C-alpha cells in the first residue's frame, strides 16, 4: 500500500511540489479518446502531479475509464501523482457501475475514483 496521505481529496505529493489541474473536455468517449490520451501523456510528461477536472455533465464511456486506469499505471511507474478533483459522478460513475468496476473494489481504487477511505 502506498503511504500517500490524503487530505480533502487532494494528494500531498512527496517528491515534487508542482501540482497542476487539468481540465478535460465534455466528450470523453471512444470518438475523442485518442486526443485525450495525447493530452494526458504530455501533461504527465511535464508535471509530477496532475489533478483531473472532469466536467460533471461529461459524456463518458468505457474507453475513458480504461484510459484513466492506464494513466494510473503510467503515473505509478513514472513516480508521478494522478488524482481526480472531484469524486466520480454523472456518466463516469455510471460507467464504473455498469462496467463492474465497483464490485469488490480495492481500497486504493475506492480512494482514487470515489475519494472514499475504507477501514482496513
Amino acid at each position, binding site marked *: 500500500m502506498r503511504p500517500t496521505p490524503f487530505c480533502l481529496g487532494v494528494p500531498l505529493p512527496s517528491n515534487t511540489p508542482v501540482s497542476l489541474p487539468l481540465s478535460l473536455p465534455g466528450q470523453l468517449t*471512444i470518438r475523442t*479518446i*485518442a486526443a*485525450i*490520451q495525447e493530452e*494526458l*501523456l504530455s501533461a*504527465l510528461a511535464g508535471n509530477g502531479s496532475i489533478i483531473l477536472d472532469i466536467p460533471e455533465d461529461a459524456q463518458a*464511456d*468505457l*474507453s475513458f475509464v*480504461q*484510459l484513466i*486506469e*492506464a*494513466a494510473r*499505471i*503510467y*503515473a505509478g*511507474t513514472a513516480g508521478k501523482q494522478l488524482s481526480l478533483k472531484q469524486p466520480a459522478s454523472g456518466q463516469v460513475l455510471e*460507467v464504473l457501475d*455498469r*462496467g*463492474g*468496476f465497483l*464490485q*469488490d473494489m480495492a481500497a486504493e481504487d475506492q480512494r482514487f475514483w470515489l475519494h472514499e477511505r475504507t477501514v482496513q
Partner: protein
Amino acid sequence: MSFPDPIAVFRTEAAELLEQVETGLLDLNHDLTDKEQVDAVFRGLHTLKGSGAMFGFEALAAFTHHCETAFDQVRKGIVPATHDLVTAVLSATDHMRALIEVPNGDHDAVSETLLAKLRAAVTAAGGGGAVAAPAAIAASAAPNTPAAPAAPATTTYKMRFSLPANSMANGTNPLGLLDELRDLGECRIKADQSSIPSLDMLMPTDLYLTWDIVLTTEQPRSAIDDVFIFVMDEMQLDLEVVDVPSAPAAAQPAPAAAPATPVATADPPAAPAVSSEHAPAAAKANPVADAKQAKSAENVRVPAERLDELMDRVGELVIAQSRLSQLAGVSGDLQLRAVSEDVERLSGELRDTMMVLRMVPVTHLFGRFRRLVHDLAIETGKSIELITEGETTEVDKSVIERLADPLVHLVRNSCDHGLESAQERVAAGKSETGRIYLTARQQAGEVIITIKDDGRGINRDRVRAKAESSGLITPNANLTDQELLQLIFQPGFSTAQQVTNLSGRGVGMDVVKRTIDALRGTINVVSHNGQGSEISLAIPLTLAIIDGLLVRVGNGRYVIPLSAVEECLELSVDEDMRSRGRSFISLRDSLVPFIRLRELFHTGTAPDPFQKVVVISTGSERVGLVVDQIIGDHQTVIKGMSKLHHDVATFSGATILGDGGVALILDVGHLVAEGQHQEAHLRAAG
C-alpha cells in the same frame, strides 16, 4: 407522422428494377461477355426478390428466385450467358410484372411454362438442373406457437468473457451487453482490469477488459447466447453451471422484478421446452465442472499455440521413449528395462494429461447454430426449433474447429430437406414446429455428435433411383440399408429436387464425409419414413495420436490407421499371379479392388514372396492394400507434412519411429476412393 403506402412504393420501385433488369438483358444480348450487365441483372433480380418477400409478394419472390439462381450461375462463371437464357429471363420479367399487379392471381401454369424454358436454356448452356419447378415459398410466416412454459427453475452460471480488442471500435458497446445480462436475473459483475497496459502503450480505442460474472437466472441458457449473438464467433466465453437448477418451490430468493424477456432477436421459442428436459441432463453430464466448482474453479488462460508446442514436445518424448524401450528390449540389462518401463508409464500418463488440456466444450460450436437455425427458419418459412444437448461435452480443440463446416451443412440439410413445411406437418399429424436436435456425448474414446430431425425422413427409393441414374450403383444392386443411406454422402449426389436459398448452392454432403474421414470418424445414418432422420458423427477425441499398423513396402515403412483396418490376408504367389492384369481379390464371395502399394510408390523392388493384403474400409467401401510385410501395431504421434508436400494426397502425415526412422501415414479415405475409382473404371471397361 404520415408516410406513403409502402406497397405502393414497392410497386414503383419494382417497376424501376424490372426496367433496369430489362435494359441489362438487352445490352447483354448484344455482348454476352459483358460482366457489368450480368452483375446489374443479378443485383436487380436479387433486390426484387428480397423486397418482394418483405412486402408479401411471395409468388413473385419465389418465381424471381429461380431467375436469380440462373444469373448467379452466370455471374460465377458456371454457366455462360446465352441468347436463349437472356430471352428466357426477358420473358420472365413480363410475368414478374403480372405477379406484382395481381399478386394473388392464378399464375402457376404460366410460371411453370416460363421456368421450363429457363431450365432448358440453363441446361443447354451447360448448367446442371439447378432451376426447379416453382416451389411455393411457404407463405405463412408460421406463427410460432410457444411451447407451454415449463415451471421456471433458476440456474446459476459462472462466466468469464472478453471481447475482441477492436470490438468497441467496431461499434459493440460492452456496457450494453452487461446491462442485458443484468436484465436476465441476479447478476454480479466484476471487471478484470489486469490486461490494461500503461498509458503510453495503450491503444485507446481497443478493449482490454475481461469480466467475471455470476448470474442467477430463470432464463434458459439460450438467453445468454442471445446477449452475445453478434460477438459469439469472436469472443472468449468460459461458462460453468454452478448450481443445479432447482424448482421454484424451493425457497429461492425471489428476483425483485418479473423476469425480463430476452432482449435479442426473437428466437424460435425452443427455450422453455429445452430448459425443462435439457438443463438437468446437462448438469448430470457435467460432474467434472461441478467438482471443479467445488474446489473454487481456478483457471489459467494459455494461448493455443503454447499448447500445440507442448503437444509437440510430448510427442517427441513419446517417440524418444519408444526408442528407449526398443533399446532396453534388446539389451539384457534388467535395470535399464525397469527404468524404461517407468518412463513408458510416465510418458503415457503425461500424454493423457496433455490430451485433456486440449479439450474444450462444444458449447461455443453449438452456440452458432442458434442463429443459423433462426435465419434458416425465416428463409424457409418453416417453424423450426433447435434443441441442443450435451454442450459441456469436451472435444479436442482442433477437432472442434474442423467440425463446424460439416455441422453447418448437416443442419442446413435438415432444415431445408428434412423438415416439411408447416402445412405438410399438420397434414401428417405432427406439430407445426419442426424440431432439430443437436446433441453431443462422449462414448469410449469417441465423441458422438448427432443431428436429428423429426421431418419426413430419407426417401430410400429416391436415393436408390438417384444413385442408379448417376451411376453410383448398378441397377438393383444388393445393398444393406446402411449402405443405401450412406449413398447420400457420395460426391455428386443430391436428392434435392430444387435449389433453394439454403443448401444446394455448390456444396454437397460429400464434403461432410470427406471432413469426417479426415478426422478418422465415421458417419451413421438412421432414418424412419415420416418420422425423421438421425445422422451421427463418431469422431475420435483427439487427432494427435493414433494407433496404427506398421507395414513395409519395398524398403519403406508406412503406417495404416488401425481404425480403418478390417483384416489382413496372405496373398499367395498363386493368387498374385492369377490377379495380374486385374486388381480384384475375392473376399468371401465379394470382389474387393486392391492396390499394389509397391507399384503405387514405384519402389522398383521385387515383391516379397509372402505379400500381405491389408483390407481397409471407410464405412461401406473397402479396398485391399498389398504390402510386403506387416511389422505390427504402432502407436503414432502424427506430424503434419511440410507445406511442400501438403498436396500429396496419398499421405495424411508422417511419424517418427522408435529407431529414429520416418514412416508416412497413409490417407485411408483417399486410397479407398482411388480403389473404388479403379473398380468403376474396370467394370465399365469389362
